């Protein structure tokens, strides 16, 4: 298979930009990559891309990391953060990364509004898609990942 349209390096750069803009403006608490594809995550935020390319971008993290992200965005204390805050902030995070990813895909793609699910594991949501790149790591010790999934054509599936 050829080089994916969006590489791990591209995702890493977007993550850095999102962190410096919203989650860690002082530059003291980066996402530390660990490559742990199987680390447990409980919050999944997805935007779908359709048009000339089909697939999804998934932002996944633990509840603690999601709470921390929501607190940073909303300028709240972590113990004030509710489920709706998490859903809103993680939705926006997937939207931001997804929009930037879309600009790297063939012209004529559309971005869906984000969907946020608070439930473990991600793979089962995309039975007809395969992961083409992903960034896995921890933020303040808590698991966070960003991955790109491409829809598998019907005839190609076994």
């Amino acid at each position, binding site marked *: 298979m050829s080089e994916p349209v969006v590489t791990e390096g591209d995702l890493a750069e977007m993550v850095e930009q999102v962190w*410096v803009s*919203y989650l860690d403006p002082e530059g003291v608490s980066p996402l530390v990559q660990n490559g742990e594809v199987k680390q447990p995550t409980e919050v999944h935020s997805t935007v779908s891309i359709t048009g000339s390319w089909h697939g999804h971008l998934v932002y996944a993290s633990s509840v603690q990391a999601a709470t921390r992200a929501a607190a940073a965005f*909303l300028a709240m204390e972590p113990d004030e953060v509710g489920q709706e805050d998490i859903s*809103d902030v993680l939705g926006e995070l997937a939207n931001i990364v997804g929009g930037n990813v879309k*600009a790297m895909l063939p012209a004529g793609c559309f971005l869906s*509004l984000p969907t946020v699910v608070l439930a473990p594991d991600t793979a089962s949501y995309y039975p007809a898609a395969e992961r083409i790149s992903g960034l896995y790591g921890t933020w303040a010790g808590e698991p966070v990942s960003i991955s790109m999934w491409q829809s598998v054509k019907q005839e190609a599936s076994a």
Partner: protein
Amino acid sequence: MVIDDSRAMRMILKRIVAKLNFDAVEAGDGQEALDLLATMTEVPELALIDWNMPNMNGLEFVTKVRAEPRLREMTLVMVTTESEQSQIVRALAAGAHEYVIKPFTEGAMIEKLALLGLVPTGANS
């Protein structure tokens, strides 16, 4: 006026414009913003507008505002994750004055507003 379907993004934008002494009203999509504008006696000086929103997207909102003489003085800034060159060209052609791509830092947003003459001197530090 801050128009974005994400409450978190509206909050970030409100925090930034508050530093420049703007009072902001919020709307969650283009239609809500138009409805709100219809009730306002004083037209806001500035609108920060997301692109992808339910009901009415930001591009449609810009087009509608530009067609409305009463709203002619409003400065329109797209603040969106849409980052293809062609999309920026579309938004400017529709009548947006500036375009800020998400993610943006607070400093970058203030610099963009300064380009539009909306930052009092001395506030940009």
